[in-house]
């Protein structure tokens, strides 16, 4: 091989090296983990006071309607998993001759699959489904009106009116809402 051929060969190799150097890809590898999230709370979460009185002689006790509160959730599901919120009277009992009903309205705030809402008479057992079909979603943090609106109504169970007894002071009960997969 003569000198000029060697030179040309060397030059070509150096070009090749240079272009190879410019083409080597560099990458970072991330392991992405989205946690399965399932969080519920209400706003406000303060004690609800309900006092059942007779409005006029001859009339039954009047319905007691709570001010609205809002159920807030953040949910991330796996695949086609769906979640529900179920509710029961977890402590104490509803006074005899009366019923406590919870009306839940659809969530119009936040985003995602909020599911369907229901109105149910609350019992110690079984738990009642108040929302189902929840997928991945969030409701927002309840600057007024965000979340699922909830209204509790406490009323006489008219066919069992004779069972109503005056309470001694006030009776404490606890309602528990649970979000879970189904």
């Amino acid at each position, binding site marked *: 091989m003569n000198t000029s051929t060697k030179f040309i060969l060397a030059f070509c190799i150096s070009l090749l090296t240079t272009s190879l150097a410019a083409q080597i890809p560099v990458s970072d590898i991330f392991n992405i983990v989205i946690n399965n999230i399932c969080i519920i709370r209400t706003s406000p979460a303060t004690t609800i006071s309900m006092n059942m*009185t007779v409005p006029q002689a*001859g009339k039954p006790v009047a319905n007691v309607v709570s001010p609205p509160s809002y159920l807030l959730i953040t949910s991330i599901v796996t695949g086609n998993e769906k979640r529900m919120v179920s509710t029961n009277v977890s402590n104490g009992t509803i006074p005899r001759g009366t019923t406590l009903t919870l009306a839940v309205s659809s969530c119009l705030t936040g985003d995602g699959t909020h599911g369907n809402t229901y109105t149910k008479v609350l019992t110690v057992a079984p738990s009642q489904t108040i929302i189902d079909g929840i997928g991945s979603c969030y409701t927002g943090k309840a600057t007024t009106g965000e979340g699922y609106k909830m209204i509790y109504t406490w009323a006489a169970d008219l066919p069992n*009116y004779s069972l109503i007894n005056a309470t001694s002071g006030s009776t404490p009960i606890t309602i528990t809402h649970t979000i879970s997969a189904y």
Partner: protein
Amino acid sequence: MNRTFYIVVFCILLSIRVEYVSAQDDNTVKIPIQMSIPPAASLSLAGNEAQLSLNEISRTAQILRPTSSGQVWINYSSVVENNLLNTIFVNIVSSNLPGDIAIKLKIGPDAGAGLGKVGKPSAPIYLSIQPQPIISEIGSCFTGIGPNKGHSLMYTWELQPGSDFNLKSLESQNLEVGVTYTISSGE
């Protein structure tokens, strides 16, 4: 450091356990509710008779005259404490009746327009200054409001035999009797 020292340290470390206790599960929320039902007893009169309201929910008053016609109904609502019952009493509070005139009161059964444990009427009575029970064993109930609801009250003016009056002349006298109805849990 000898072996004993290391054994002691090891045992101490084994006995220390730090537990993370969550104050509340993220997937449940608890709402406290306080529910109260105060006892209640209230009554009122319905019908087109002259009535006085005493401005008390458990008492009401009425003026009776010989010319009074039409019927009166007594409506009430009651919420009792366990094992207690309410009773409705009537008594005369004012009267210019001469001694040989009496008013008989007949009480009808509940008309069935309400619900719950309504009361039972007593047998007919002659009105007196002493309170007398006219509807008893009232539990938690309501009668509905208005005429033809609750119990009917019918008054009959009676003359004792040998009276100087006759029924026709009664109407020309300014006879008035004031009565009060009271609902309470009894003596």
